[in-house]
């Protein structure tokens, strides 16, 4: 569509020669809506608009969580999604077991104990999201570490990556689900290595705040 218009520019004045699209779909295609309720309300509106094909890992059930799915994708190695799913299920089991044990032991803060593993995962990710990051920028032959704000997407990515990296840094005998469960539980409480990593990054950004005006990109 986009490159065809370049040739017919002189004939059709309406066609504009814009940058070539890298997407399979032309820009007027709409992303599919997953939520059934929104589908019903918007059905008439979308009846004559071309829609992109539905992604095969998204569904409208209670088992689906956007953040969980994303995390699952990051666990996956070499396309082995089956194994990733198994590992995450085992992680959730480990989390559930420890939390129920904590609940049954009966401490002072018994009402505060969250037993839902997925909520804990979301809490952990939200707690370990960084606000800023450092990016190396060259000025006058010297590389400066400049604090740069992060987009929401990038901060979620970094949080999940850090949690996974912390979980993968373990002894050979320890299994990933156990370590990952610990990291998630730690991060959900606002403790542990991932939270420390985030705080360290913030501290570094604070010390380098004088270079903030060097930013571009």
């Amino acid at each position, binding site marked *: 569509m986009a490159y065809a218009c370049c040739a017919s520019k002189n004939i059709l004045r309406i066609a504009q020669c*814009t*940058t070539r699209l890298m997407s399979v779909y032309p820009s007027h295609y709409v992303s599919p809506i997953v939520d059934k309720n929104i589908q019903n309300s918007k059905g008439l509106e979308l009846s004559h608009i071309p829609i992109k094909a539905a992604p095969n890992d998204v569904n409208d059930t209670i088992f689906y969580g956007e953040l969980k799915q994303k995390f699952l994708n990051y666990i996956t190695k070499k396309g082995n999604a089956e194994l990733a799913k198994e590992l995450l299920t085992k992680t959730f089991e480990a989390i559930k077991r420890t939390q129920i044990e904590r609940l049954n032991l009966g401490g002072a803060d018994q009402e505060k104990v969250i037993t839902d593993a997925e909520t804990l995962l979301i809490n952990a990710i939200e707690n370990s999201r960084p*606000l800023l990051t450092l990016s190396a920028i060259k000025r006058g032959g010297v590389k400066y570490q400049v604090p740069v*704000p992060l987009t929401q997407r990038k901060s979620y990515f970094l949080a999940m990556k850090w949690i996974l990296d912390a979980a993968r840094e373990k002894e050979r005998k320890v299994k990933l689900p156990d370590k990952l469960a610990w990291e998630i539980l730690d991060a959900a409480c606002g403790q542990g290595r991932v939270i420390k990593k985030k705080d360290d990054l*913030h501290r570094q950004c604070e010390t380098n*705040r004088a270079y903030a*005006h060097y930013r571009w*990109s």
Partner: protein
Amino acid sequence: MLTHFAFDVTVKTADCSTHNKNKIMRVPGALYAARGRAPQNENDVPFQEILPLRLKNSVSGKADSGADVACLQEMGVLFACLKDNEFVEQYCSKEITKFQQCYKFYMDRKFEAKKTVNQGIVQPGNNLNYKQLNKYLKRYPNPK
């Protein structure tokens, strides 16, 4: 002008004589500067037109990209708050939301600006982006 300089010289000689009489007086450089440097012979250095001496029919888009430094003040406030509260984010939620909103607003505006540039719709007015300017220049090129 010249008389003034002459006066200056006499003063200098008087000064020198008091210190050491054997040394030769230094002529101040200002004397030469007043006379000026002799111009070069124009035939020795013929003019070369290295770059064409006329304006191009296009402008580059470099200036339109602009500086990317946004939300510096919000960042400063956030850093101050974080430092006061020993980097516990709970106590700085107001500053954090303000900072993130600022950055999001900036990114959205940048995205919109890029979209309008890419659309390249020519409109009358003096606040034109580089694509619009290039279209104008293509339609009405500089006289040859």
